[in-house]
Structure formats: C-alpha cells, structure tokens
C-alpha cells in the first residue's frame, strides 16, 4: 500500500459503531440506578438478608440470633 505524504495510518471503513455491542439503550441492566435498592434482601444500611439469595422461605434462612451477621450465600 502506498501512502501520500500527509496521510496518517490507512484503515478500512468501519461497518459497526464503536459502542455497538455494549449497553444498548432500553435494555434493562442489573447495575441500573436504583436496581440495587429495589431488589429484595438489600437493606439501606449496606447490610443484607437471606432474601437476596432465595425467594423460598427466606426468613427461615436468616440467622437464629439477630445479633449474628446475616451472611447469605450471594
């Protein structure tokens, strides 16, 4: 390929927008603002309950002693 003086690197014509594959507008994202607070089991003070891990009898999975930290699997 020959280049004229004054040309920069020659590249092909792009056939996709640079930001095409990611973060498509209108698609719901897990990290959207307010999503964390909306989901069950997340308490406002940065703690969480078993409800963030399971929807089945979540309260039964919380610690038996309220003074214990609530550490659900995920």
């Amino acid at each position, binding site marked *: 390929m020959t280049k004229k003086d004054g040309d*920069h690197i020659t590249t092909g014509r792009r056939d996709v927008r640079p*930001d095409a594959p990611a973060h498509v507008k209108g698609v719901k994202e897990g*990290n959207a*603002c*307010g999503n*964390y607070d909306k989901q069950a089991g997340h308490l406002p003070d*940065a703690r969480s309950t078993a409800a963030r891990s399971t929807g089945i009898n979540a309260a039964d999975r919380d610690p038996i002693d309220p003074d214990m930290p609530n550490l659900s699997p995920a």
Partner: protein
Amino acid sequence: MTIRSPQEQETRQLVEMSWDPITRIIGNLGIYTKIDFQNNQVVECKSTSSLFRGYSVFMKGKDPRDSHFITSRICGICGDNHAVCSIYAQNMAYGVKTPPLGEWIVNLGEAAEYMFDHTLFQDNLVFVDYCEQMVKETNPSLLRRAETTEAPRGDIHGYRTIADIMRAFNPFTGAVYREALQVSRLTREMCCLMEGRHVHPSTLYPGGVGTVATPQVFTDYLVRLLRTVDFIKRAVPMNDDVFDFFYEALPGYEEVGRRRVMLGCWGAFQDPGVVDYDYRTMNEWGRRMFVTPGIVLDGELRTTNLVDINLGIRILLGSSYYDDWQGEETFVTHDPLGNPVDQRHPWNQTTLPRPQKRDLDGGNYSWVMSPRWYDERTAGYLALDTGGGPLARLWATALAGLVDTGTVRSTGHSVQINLPKSAAFPDMQFEWQIPKWANTIERNRARMYFVAYAAAMAFYFVEQALGEVRAGLTKVFTDFEVPEEAIGAGFHEAVRGVLSHHLVIRKGKIANYHPYPPTPWNASPRDVYGTPGPYEDAVQGLPIFEENGPETFKGIDIMRTVRSFDPCLPCGVHMYLGGGKVLRQVHSPTLGTSVSG
C-alpha cells in the same frame, strides 16, 4: 540481534552492539549501544520500540463503562492493574464511590497481583541473569569466589554458599526457580478469588465489585497467603545475600545501571475511609493510600500531592513516530480546581501516528513517546523512572512517613514490614532501608522487599474486610449514571511502576482516553530537549564487568540493567555478531541448563 561495526570517535574505538528484540512488550524493545571495549564502558545507548498499539486512538467513541475491560488487555501480566486504574478514573468521572468492603476486595486482589508478578519476574526471569549457569559463562572468576563464600543468612534460607543459591536459580532445575512457579500459582489463585479472573478481572467494575464477600472467600485467600509468607521469609534474606555478594566481589558494581535518583510513584491501595474519588480532594485521599504517591528527586521527596503530580505530566515527542498535537483540540483547559492544564498533558493529547523508517542517527527511532514530569522549581522536564516499581514505591513511602497499619510502618528513612507466624517460621520483621544509589542491584533488591510489603498489607486488608463481613455489611457495589460530560483521572501502581489513565467523556462516550503505564516512562527515547529516557540514561556510561571479550560478548551487565526496570517479561535476546557471522544466543531459559544459553 547485534551488529558490530567499529567506529573511530575521537581516540576511542567504539563497537556498535544492539539487542533487538530484548524483552517482551510483545518482543519489540531494542537496545542499541556503542561500547568502548578497551575501557570497558558503554558510551551511548538508544532504546527503541517497533510496535504501535493505538489504545488512545481506538478508545475514542466507545462507551466509557467498557474502558476497564478493554484497557485491561494492554498487558498480559498486569492487566488487572489497568482495569483497576481505569475504574479509579471512571469513579472520578461518574462521581461514584466503592463501598468499603468492595475497596478492600480490590486492594486484596492487587496485593496478590504484586506478589504474583514480582515473584515470577524475580525468580524466573531476573535470576536467570544471576544463576550459576549464566555467571559461569560471563564471569567465571566470580563463580569461583561464590563457591567459597558462605551465605551470611544461610541459617534462614538453607543454602550454605552463594554458589549454592546461584545453582538454585538455574532455570528448570534450580529449587528456587521451581518453587517460585508454585508460589506464582498460589498468588494467582488469590487474585482470582478477589477479582474473578487473572489477568483480566471479571468482577471489578466502577462503583464496586461483583465478588461475593463470604467469610469463606477470605479464608481461602488467607490460607494461600500464609503459605506464600513462608516463601517470602526465605526469599528476602536470600536476595540480600546474593546482591550483597555482588557489591563485595565486584567493587564498583554499584555503578552498573546507576542513574540520578528521579523516581515516580503514583500510589496504590485506596483507603475506603477517605477516598471519595473527587479530584478536588485528591491530595487528601492520595496521601492516605497504603503506598504513598510521590516524586523522589536526588533522595528528597519532591511532592506527595497527586494534583501536582497530575498537572506536571507532559508527553513530549522528539524521537517518536508521531506528529505533534500542539494545534489539535484542547479537551481540558482547566482541572476541577481551576488549575490550567497543558496541551501536552494526557487529557489534551491527540495521538497522530506517523509510521516511518527508523533513524538512530539523529532522527526518530521509537513508537514510545517521552513522558516527562515538569518540575516548576527548575523549569526542567524530568525523565522520571519507576525503578522497576518497588524501588520508587518503597522510597516514596519510606520518605513520606505516612503509612502505619501495624503490619507495615514507614519511618521516614525506611519501611518496616512485619510478617506473622507461619508454618515454617516464627513472626519476622524486615526493614527496607533507603539505599545509597538507584542502580541495577537496588532495583532488584527492592522487588522482593515489596513482595513482603504486599503480603503484610494483605494481612491488614483481610482483617479489615472480615471486620466488614462480621458486621454484616455485605454491600460491595454502588450504582451510578454515566454523565454526558465529565473528566476523570486514575492513579495507581502497575506492578512495574506508575500507571495513570486519563479520561474525557463527551455526549456519554469517550472523547479522549490516554493510559500511561510504566514502560513508556522507562523506555522513552530522547525527547525534544535531547534528554535520554531512563533505560538509555542507565545504560550510558555503564561499566562492563563481563569477562568475555567482544567476540563472545553477552552484554550481561546491560541485560541486568534493562531487566532491573522490569520491562514486562524479558523473553529473549537474539544476537548477531558482525561480518556475516551470525550468533544466535537465546537468552530465555531453555530446557536443560547443560545446553549452552
């Protein structure tokens, strides 16, 4: 390759010798020297890179939320440092702060990365230059002396003589070499526990992490950390023995790779208690980082203020294959504190590549630009180096006297590192003292001390993280919106030194993005003012201690010097010696040390 061509210059007989490629960075670093063999000295050195990456070109127009995933791919060994640095820059741009537990998880992952990478580099790559096989080929008399020199700290590491240690460094057969491979696996696992994957983390995001913080994950980390600590407790004294021996047995070896003390460190490990990623308070939270940012000039701490550090960065041209961007768009005229931002600052850089023929004789010869730090006091553009990373980090931290976690304490003249009891050893304290010189040996010595530093810090981070978990504070992520217009800067330490990411967002997309990793600083060519880059500076004037003459010259002292800067992974030296006689000396470890090279 090396091309030899004698040149008469004044009264000196100079031989041109070149090593290209010398190291990784995808095998594209070349060192071109002129050597005076009669006086055993390197007279001139130029460092060149023949690869163009173009991250700053193709990041434009992309969604800023992708930038840590993309820029992580800059490096195949410290990609997580890039991801973290990009996240710091994004946090600033989005105005979001990671919850404390998330921040401890990032710190734990990065501590594991430092332990992993430094161990792998030191024991599997650097020490190949110091192993029995290599020393036998380059300095046989030194090896004879090593055979009869007792290792002063042999009671800790278990090797009786210095030569025994050198044998343990032999690639593939040496005990230290093999053990280091095991340790680098352990430390990589630690990184994966925190960051999901190594080298390109999958659970690090702006605003937090996706790692599920259970007591189990920290216990898994701690188990591996304690096993690593056993290795570190032997490695630090062993390293000291070898490096002290070089000073003792080769008087004048301190001049190898020595350059003026001009070290830069951009700081590592955020303190979640203070960091809010607001540029306006960057000085305060920067100084609370667990590795203090700073610029060390002639042994004095010039500044620890990240705002000063940021504003002083200048990207110069002079010997690089780019057009100047002085007349291009200015993205950031003033920083959020109202300080003017130079057109040569990364925020305002426009990369205009211009491929051309390499001209080592007064023309352009490298794809690396010349990052410099503008010192207002002297109005000079300083070619800072990173000392391979650890030297600058320990030096800045030691002088600043700001770090005190109990496990690590900075005294103003040294760094004390306390490691707890482990399976094979009782608790131990190491103290890294500020050395007299910034040279090849001290860059290498600092590396293993920093592994100890990172391990000691990791104990502190685990305690803090478990404190959060025990309080039930499981939140590790904060949500955020991407603003239409914003700027951000991330400052971090890649394993081999300073790392900055500068980001400009317009219309919700990246308008400008410039990562500046350590190797552009270290491997930079001569700038527009004629100032050589650190590799060039350190190799120029280097005395040669190798016993081989010009015909069988390996350039071991030059190799040790360039590798002391940790130019990512040194993989090979291909050498061609004059007059059509081609000698290929593969420097990378090959199976079986009985085979030459």
